[in-house]
Each structure stands twice: as C-alpha cells, then as structure tokens.
C-alpha cells in the first residue's frame, strides 16, 4: 500500500513537473541590444523598431532571411507600365480584432505615413513616389508614380499596413498603449514599456499558421555583459549581438548555440574630395597642409585601399565575424558583381602608387571614426593606421561618440572618415546612389556622399539603372556602375559585418542578413 502511494506520488510529481515544463516551454524571452522607440509602425524608421513591429503589423511584401522579396499581405505584384503598379492582396486575412483586411486599409496606410506628427525619421521616404492610389476591388490596388520607380516593391516591404478601422485619428500614443496596435501579424501587442520590454502574445488566428510561442518577451539589455549574463543564467533564451570577445566561449558551451550571418552592413572609408587643397587633417609630415587634395588622385585612393590587410582585420579584430568587402553588399544581393573581389593586401604596390602620384615620402593624415557605433570601430581605425605606417603614411586615430562624430562628418570637418552603411533596399543601386552619386540632395542623389566624389559617367549609369524597371537590365546596369566605382576606388570598402545570435540549447534561430531579431525565426529544436 505504502509502495503504491509512493509510486502514485512520484507519478504525480513527474506529471506536474512535465505540465509545468510544457506550459513554460511555450513562453520565450529574448534579449535585445538596443531600445525600441515606438510601437507606431510609421513613427521612427529605425532597424530595431522595424524588426519588432513586424511581429504585429505586416507589409504587402515581406523579406526572407536573405532580404529577397516574398509575398506578404500581397500575393503578387507587377508593373503594368513604367508608372503603374498593381498589387493583388491576400484574401481571408483578419486583423487582431477580427475585422477583414482589404485594399481600404492599404489606401489608409499610404495616407497616414507622411502625416505622423513629430516623426523624427519618417517613412514617407518609401511612399512619396506614389502620386495616386486606386482601389480596383477589395483585393486589388493600383499605385501610380510620377516617374519610373524601380524600388517600389522594396519600398512596400518597409511600409507596414495598419487597420483603417482602428487607425483613423489614432496617435503614436495609441499605438504605444496598444489601443491602435491592431495588425494582421502573427503576434499581438500585450505591453510596451519604453526602454524596458515589449510583451507579445500569439495571434492564434494568424493566416500563416500558428506560432510555437504563446508569449514572447523582448527585454532591452543594452549592456552587452548584462545581455550575456541573462543568457547564461537562463533569464532569456536568446540574445542578439553577442560581443565578439564572448562568442568563442559561448559557442564551446554545450548549453548554448551560436549562429551568425553576414549582414547588409558594410564598413567603409570616405575620402573627402570636396576641396582643391588638402581636406582637414591631411598634411605633409611636418604638419603643413598639402597644396593639392591627394584624395582626388585615384592612385592615392587605390594605394590607401590596398595598404589595408582586410583578412587580418576580419580574423584578428573581428574574430572571424566579418567578411572582407570589395563592394557595398555581399555578393548574393541584387546588383552586386562577382567580378569585384576584395582588394588584395599589397603594401609594395601601394608604395609604388604613392610614388607615381608624387608622394614618394608619403604624407600624414588623421583617421576619424565613431566609438561604439559599429562593431569594434575604434580597433579597426587603429589597425588601419598601423597598416598605413608600413607604406610611409603617418596616420593618427581620433574617435568620438556617434552623437558628435556624425554631425561633424556631415559638415565635412574630416578628411578621412570611417563609416558604415546598411542597405535597406537589398539592392546595390540604392547604396551607390546614396553614397557615390554626385552630391545633390534636392534630387535625392548622393545624400550621404561625404566624400563628395563625383563621376558623371557613374551618375549616368546610376540614373539609368534607377529608371529601368526590367530587373535583368537594371541588375546589369548596377553591376556596371559598381565595377566602375570600385575600379576607381570611389570609396574604400573594409568588410561586411556578421550579425550573431546565441540561443539556449533546445532553440534554433534562423539568422537573417537584415540584422532583424524575430520571434518568428526562433523555433524549438534539438
């Protein structure tokens, strides 16, 4: 009898424990490295926001893990002519409140996007090309553009559709409080606490099928040591941006698993070519400004590029979590050219080029860079300085917080600038246009061209590419433009950052090239 009671008690305990585990298993916590500033999908265009809000709201076109466009709320789309786009919408999609999703919601969203009060970074960038919206039927919508706009599908991947019923008169506060945060996505917003956490609950009626998690908590853990500690102690099951110095140790531990993927962010150098005389902080060795701007000479630019040992930076400083770069995007992206390889490390060749350009004894420059904006940014700048000393260029390094650095860089107060660029459109044409087209912000050309590099031939190619709707023709034009720009060393690409995630054993994350951390990519696994 006693034995039976004992067995029953043990069985009860085991089943209770199993039930507890099962209940807990459908909850998951994720540690994020930066703050989420709003739940309003049209308030602040910022990568962490865009990633988080994607659980609740969806765009017409989604991106897969390689940033390729795939159907989202639209099942198909096509250009009827150069100025007209038709989107077929998904049927039987419901918002979290049960109301159906139709073309009215799309039209409402496009009207709301440019009119969000106090928006510090507007999504209007993605909608301003559309001059007219026509609802053909509840599941067909047509957009008109003033000029051919090749990035329209890519833009539509950045605009999340809100519900007209809940969105009319809704303010950013209503989205933050959850009142208006009613989307079509796989999760519903439960709670948003700025700078602390975001709690989501599964949307069981999701059109794409049920998610494995009932509840997902995103915790904001900006301090990287705290983020790692939260993972090690089991407080969260996944973290993003594992600090490079901790990756090896966590990967060795059987209780955890590290995944990584090359990102769409390139670290590069802009050489200030805005002045005839030497740009700021570029002098001869005694410290007198140079008569001519050396960066206007393609030979000097090339010398400064091939003097950098990219493999050494990727292996030693980035601990393997970077891929040496030869252009602005890794070569699986649209518009990249496989003919462009990362420049080979060649200090002798660099010296020879400097001699040919009239600087047999080199010159002096200061490398400016941000501190703590990009992974190991300060160390990269120091490594570059050391490589330059080997070709007779005296390089000093000065780094500063991002808040100071970018303002001064935009004012062109530096000659040599270490920078980073993430291509959100997923095609190289838009990065060439922003970084290397001749500076003309009113036309949207060269808006971030801090080098003020200008090459009419390149401008023509970029303009032609960005006006060509045919994907194959456009890709060929972008490749041609990239080959021209990189052959001229219009900027110096260093490497592509590799994003990292660490999960507890029993979880698998599908890493993404857009650096998004998504609960929808997290699955229970071995």
């Amino acid at each position, binding site marked *: 009898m006693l034995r039976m009671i004992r067995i029953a008690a043990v069985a009860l305990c085991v089943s209770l424990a199993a039930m507890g585990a099962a209940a807990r298993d459908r909850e998951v916590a994720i540690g994020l490295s930066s703050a989420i500033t709003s739940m309003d999908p049209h308030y602040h265009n910022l990568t962490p926001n865009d990633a988080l809000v994607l659980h609740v709201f969806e765009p017409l076109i989604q991106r897969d893990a390689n940033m390729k466009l795939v159907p989202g709320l639209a099942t198909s789309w096509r250009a009827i002519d150069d100025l007209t786009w038709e989107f077929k919408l998904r049927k039987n999609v419901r918002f979290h409140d049960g109301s159906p999703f139709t073309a009215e919601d799309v039209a409402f969203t496009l009207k709301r996007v440019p009119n969000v009060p106090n*928006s*510090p970074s507007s999504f209007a960038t993605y909608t301003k090309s559309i001059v007219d919206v026509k609802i053909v039927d509840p599941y067909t919508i047509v957009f008109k553009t003033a000029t051919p706009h090749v990035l329209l599908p890519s833009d539509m991947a950045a605009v999340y559709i809100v519900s007209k019923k809940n969105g009319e008169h809704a303010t950013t*506060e209503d989205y933050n409080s959850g009142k208006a945060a009613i989307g079509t996505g796989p999760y519903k917003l439960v709670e948003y606490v700025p700078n602390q956490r975001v709690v989501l609950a599964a949307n069981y009626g999701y059109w794409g099928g049920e998610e494995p998690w009932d509840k997902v908590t995103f915790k904001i853990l900006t*301090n990287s040591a*705290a983020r790692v500690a939260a993972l090690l102690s089991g*407080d969260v099951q996944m973290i993003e941006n594992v600090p490079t110095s901790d990756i090896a140790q966590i990967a060795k531990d059987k209780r955890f698993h590290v995944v990584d993927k090359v990102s769409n962010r390139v670290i590069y150098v802009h050489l200030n070519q805005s002045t005839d005389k030497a740009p700021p902080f570029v002098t001869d060795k005694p410290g007198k400004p140079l008569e001519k701007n050396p960066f206007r000479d393609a030979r000097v630019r090339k010398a400064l590029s091939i003097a950098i040992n990219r493999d050494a930076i990727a292996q030693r400083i980035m601990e393997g979590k970077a891929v040496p770069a030869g252009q602005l995007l890794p070569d699986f992206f649209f518009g990249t050219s496989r003919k462009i390889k990362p420049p080979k490390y060649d200090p002798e060749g660099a010296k020879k080029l400097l001699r040919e350009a009239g600087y047999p004894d080199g010159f002096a420059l200061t490398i400016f860079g941000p501190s703590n904006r990009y992974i190991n940014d300060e160390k990269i700048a120091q490594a570059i300085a050391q490589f330059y000393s080997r070709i007779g260029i005296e390089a000093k390094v000065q780094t500063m917080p991002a808040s100071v*650095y970018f303002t001064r860089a935009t004012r062109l107060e530096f000659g040599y600038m270490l920078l980073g660029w993430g291509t959100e459109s997923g095609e190289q044409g838009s990065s060439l246009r922003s970084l290397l087209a001749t500076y003309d912000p009113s036309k949207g050309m060269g808006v971030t061209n801090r080098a003020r590099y200008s090459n009419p031939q390149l401008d023509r190619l970029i303009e032609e590419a960005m006006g060509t709707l045919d994907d194959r023709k456009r890709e060929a034009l972008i490749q041609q433009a990239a080959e021209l720009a990189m052959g001229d060393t219009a900027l110096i690409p260093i490497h592509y950052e590799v994003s990292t995630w660490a999960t507890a054993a029993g979880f698998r994350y599908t890493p993404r090239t857009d650096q998004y951390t998504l609960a929808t990519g997290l699955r229970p696994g071995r």
Partner: protein
Amino acid sequence: MLAYALRRLGQSAFVLAAMSFLVFLGVYAIGNPIELLVNPEADQAERLRAAAALGLDKPLLVQYGVFLVHAAKGDLGRSFVYNIPAIQLILERLPATLELAFAATVIAVLLGIPLGLLAGLKPHSWIGRSIMAGSIVGFSLPTFWVGLVLIMVFSVELGWLPPNGRGATVSVLGFPVSFLTLDGLKHLAMPALNLALLKLSLLVRLTRAGTREALLQDYVKFARAKGLPMRRVIGVHVLKNIMIPIVTVIGLELGSVIAFAIVTESIFAWPGTGKLLIDSINQLDRPVIVAYLMVIVTIFIAINLVVDLLYSLLDPRVRIGAAAPAH
C-alpha cells in the same frame, strides 16, 4: 523661517534657469540630433521636414525662448525619440531609481555606521583591521566589475537571484514599489548591494575617523570619569557628536546615487532614470536631458533642505535661518 524658505526658493529658480540654458548650449555644441534620428537614405526635403517637426530649424535662442515659455506652463517638451512628454518618461522611471537609491543608502547606513563604530573603538584588534581592509576593497573595486561578479556568482553559478530587471511591484500611495514582494526583493538585492558598496566603505571610514577623534575629547573622558556605562557614552556622547558630517555625506551621496546610478542601472538593466539619461545623451534627446537635469536639481535642493533641518535636530546650536536676526 519664511524669509529663509523664500530665499531658498529664489535661489533654486535661478539655478534651474541657468542650468537649463547651459544644457541647451551643451547639446547644441555636441551635435545635430537630426543626424542621428533621420534615416541616412532620406533626402534633403525629409531632413528639413524632421528638423521643422522637432523645432530644430529655428535659431538656438528662439528655441530656448520657446522652451522657457512652455516650461513656465509646466510643459518641458516631448522626447525627440519617443514622442512622449519628457517629464512623463522621467517620472515613470523615477520610483525605480528612488527605490534603488534608498535601498542602497539603507544598506550603507545600517552596515556602515555600526562597522565604522566598531573599527573606531577597537582600531588595533583583528576585527577593526579586517573592517578597514574590507573598506579599502569596497573603495577600490570598480562598480561595474563588482556588478558583473555578483551576477556571475548569484545568477549564473548559483541561480539564486535574477540577473536583471525589476521584480513585481505593488502600489503604495500611487507609487509602484517592489521591495514589498519577494520577487521584487530578489531583483533588488544585487543592484542595491552593488550600489551600496562604495557608500558603505565611505561611511565605515568616516564613522571610524569620527569615533577615534571623539574618544579623545574631554567630554568623553569626563563622561567616563563620571562612571557612565560605556554603552551610553558611545550611544549618546560619541555618536551624536560625529553624526553631523555623516548626515551631510549621506545626504550628498543620496543625491548622487539618485542622479548617477548609471553604471549599476545599465549592468542590471534596472529601469531607472540613470539609464534613460545616458541613452538620451547618446541620442541627443535634448528635451529629456533638460527635463531630467531639472528634476535632479530639484531633488538636490530638497535633500539639502532636509539635511539642513536634520542639523538643527542633531545640534541645537545650529538654527535654521541663522543669518536672519532671531526674535
């Protein structure tokens, strides 16, 4: 007393105005918030629109004037980043910071004064020596390192305490507090101890020094000669006389703990104002920086007032408003 309070109030208003202007100037000198807020692919029109939306297109003095007019009505502006009133953003976090600061101060006082007294009374015993050695360790170890070691030991290795965040809260007089729940206490323990460590060491050393000095004074010798029990000599004659500098330091430290618990807050992801301030500085979120510093200055002023009042309780010779002729 009234004249004293009015004078204090006038001084405070002046300090607040001067400080807000300096912060305006400072943020302006650091950089342009638009550079950090706007998407880098945005064109010129979008940059101008964002600057206009945030009021950054006007000259600095006009911006400051607008701020003053609104501030006079009690509106300190909206966060550039969150589009939430800055003061609301701060007040939501202030209870967490205050709780952490008071918990740390209580730990420091409850441990620091008795330990310091002990070390002062028995300076040459092994216990006095080890207390002093301990206080040197507490002084010299950097806060962030101690915090990480605490997390490693108590969360990662032993699994006793949660590594980050604030626990369940209950509402007391409308303020959410977490020290009344077990979960809350568990979350509070490590950050409070981490923050208390430095103050604890400071109080130990201060109390010890005060005690040793007081023991040599004539009134102590006299009290002992009178045959008073040692407990009374220490409790009344020694302690009361060394309290004035200790209260001053506790007051100042409490203020600085409230204002600048940044390191501890970011290591333990404690949802307080320190973390908010550092994030806002990095983002050049000027309305939040200005509002935060105004709140902190107000708190400092209040604490100093309380300290002054405490002096007069501890030492009847100190009179509030001594500068004004007493009636």
